[in-house]
């Protein structure tokens, strides 16, 4: 992350493929882990921890979508619906069988993976915008099904209350406790993804993305890997849905509508397609941007507008700023925040002796 080497000194494939190219990278990651796992929850107030909680949930979902869209090149507008599959699977398991979180989370993920693999079938025949429409259909079908099948939705309200998860008999209630809970899964998701994309499967995904016919010719079964990408991506989405359900204490289908799918697409496009750090950046950016623009407007808007006007202006201006900043960042760096970050790093790599 923060490390900088002054040149390329690698002499073996093993060195080139290493997760940590330099020892300092390991220390930087350890320091970051220490910061976010120990220092942050102990020092920050509840409000700030709650924002981080939302980001952590978004990271898991964004990583999943990035596996599908960024690494495998298959577009999906059904991510929100896969989250709802996970959420309702977990909610039903909790309310009917009193299942603990270490069962409901994988179960929610697996159920979403199953549905995701089915929804992924059209990807074998169509690509691009056509596939987007097929996944959009999935989003609507899943929404409709949850809304109209009481056995899944738990009644007319389509919301199921779920008690917060218990860990060795301690119910995780406060924002900080939930932060640790969510952090564990976010870390698992990050480690899982970073290993996945460096494995045979990950490289097969990338080959499919770059040119699926060529990939097939070199012996990659596009059938298997496209569906696998849908399944893995949906697994992440399902887990996100379960985490969200535990975080809020309720599964409600209106939390997973099409706008959510689009928000997640925005995250990975802004963060950077096909990058893990980009998913994290994107999740943080999309979650924080409305909050930061609001702070900004509240702090300085009073200089220009009256208080009554401000109440009406802030929400609207916030949307305009949100859209404007997304355009700004994408114009500055079309490959997303991850690339922007790498550019900054490259600039400092040989700094101050650039020439």
């Amino acid at each position: 992350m923060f490390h900088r080497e002054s040149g390329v000194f690698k002499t073996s494939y093993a060195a080139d493929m290493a997760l940590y190219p330099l020892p300092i990278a390991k220390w930087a990651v350890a320091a970051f882990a220490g910061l976010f796992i120990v220092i942050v929850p102990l020092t920050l107030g509840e409000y700030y921890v709650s924002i981080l909680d939302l980001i952590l949930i978004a990271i898991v979902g964004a990583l999943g979508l990035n596996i599908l869209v960024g690494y495998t090149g298959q577009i999906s507008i059904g991510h929100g619906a896969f989250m709802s599959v996970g959420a309702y699977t977990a909610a039903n398991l909790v309310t009917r069988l009193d299942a603990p979180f270490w069962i409901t989370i994988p179960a929610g993920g697996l159920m979403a993976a199953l549905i995701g693999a089915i929804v992924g079938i059209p990807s074998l025949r169509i690509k691009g915008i056509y596939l987007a429409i097929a996944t959009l259909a999935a989003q609507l079908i899943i929404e409709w099904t949850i809304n109209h099948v009481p056995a899944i939705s738990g009644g007319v309200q389509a919301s199921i209350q779920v008690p917060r998860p218990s860990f060795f008999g301690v119910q995780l209630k406060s924002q900080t406790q939930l932060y640790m809970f969510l952090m564990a899964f976010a870390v698992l998701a990050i480690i899982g993804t970073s290993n996945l994309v460096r494995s045979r499967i990950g490289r097969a995904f990338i080959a499919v993305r770059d040119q699926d016919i060529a990939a097939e010719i070199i012996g990659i079964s596009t059938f298997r890997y496209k569906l696998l990408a849908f399944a893995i991506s949906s697994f992440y989405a399902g887990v996100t849905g379960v985490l969200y359900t535990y975080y809020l204490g309720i599964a409600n289908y209106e939390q997973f509508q099409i706008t959510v799918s689009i928000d997640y697409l925005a995250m990975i496009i802004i963060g950077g397609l096909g990058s893990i750090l980009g998913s994290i950046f994107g999740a943080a950016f999309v979650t924080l941007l409305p909050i930061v623009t609001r702070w900004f407007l509240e702090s300085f808007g009073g200089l220009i507008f009256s208080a009554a006007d401000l109440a009406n202006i802030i929400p609207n201006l916030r949307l305009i700023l949100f859209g404007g900043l997304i355009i700004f960042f994408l114009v500055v760096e079309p490959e997303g925040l991850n690339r922007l970050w790498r550019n900054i790093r490259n600039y400092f790599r040989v700094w101050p002796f650039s020439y």
Partner: protein
Amino acid sequence: MSKANRAILALALGAAAGLGLATSAGAQQKEVLIGMQCDRTGATQITGVVLCPAMHDYYDLINAGGGVEGYTIKADEIDNEYKVPQAVEAYQRQKQEGAVLMTLYGTPMTVALNQRLEEDKIATTSPGFGIAAAADGTRYPYLFPIAATYWSQGAAAVQFVKDKLGGNLKGKKIAYVFYDNPAGKEPMPIIEELQKREGFELRTFAVPPPGVEVGAQVLDIAQRYRPDFVIAHLFGRSPAAAIKAFKSNGYPLSKVVGLVWASSEADIDAAGGFGVAEGYHAMQFAGAGDDYPVRQQIKAMYKKAGKEPLDLMDKNTVYYNRGLLQAAIHVEGIRNALKANGGKAPTGTEIKNGFEQIRDFTLGGLVPPLEITPTDHEGGGWVQVFQVKGGKFVKETDWFRAYRDVVEHALKTAE
């Protein structure tokens, strides 16, 4: 500017914004902070842009008159864009700032935050939306629907239809057209129960989201089913589309009653004006129109300050008056809390108890004869029906409620 410089500039701006927040966060003495969530930009902004300014107006009126028992009211508004993550963030922020009373906006946000409310003991209102079961104060101690829930509205609508059709529903045909989401379906169990009791024929017509395509359903109702009365439970843009479609299919609007979110001037205007909607029945949980003293007081307050009252005040009296109702109930809850605790800064629990003592508070007829108790957070489930007549809403019934036994039974058996 190089890219790195630009990034540094962005960081500096962010830091400046953070600093500004830190300086503005200082709290004053003798102040009650109300956390308001609004929707001025999201899916239901048509309501939010009127409701929220009305609430601010009422708080301003109270503060101009010396506040509540020596306390001034401070309302912190955050727009949740009808999105759950934004609502969670807004909630945490207002809680951190010390809000002891909140108003949520939107059903998904209300259900998402419900568990937190109980854990944090913050009294919260959710008038006219949220879960009908929240009327049961023993199960949802900190959530106050304060207005008729969808169950009460459904029961009242059937009663209204019964009165209109001569006091007997046996063999009559009623069509229930609803927005196909949980909120739209919520009154259905009540209406189905009443169908058994009253012996009418019922057919339901679902309008899929986003609800602007109602032509097929209305055609089906007007031409094929030909019911004796229609109960419409629609939201957003669909009430206007439905009124228009009923009109063009020649179905008399005087045989249509809309539940509370299909009942504002905005809906009538979008349908083509009051001329088009002549005869339409609109159910209300706060009085519509201008004939209430509190509205005159607000106009006088603006006049005194040398300003014009907001033009939406007269353009959309329905949502404006609902905002007044909500703000007034908040103020009464705070007043009761302060009276009970002897003037200390009230806690969420004290305000909850304050809400539960509200009765005989009508605000000149704008508020129904609410009676909020520890078990009944709905306050009785009162509604009023207005009719579109000669270019405005004309009061058609007084406050009434109906089939309480059916609604109470549903509350008891709710999961």
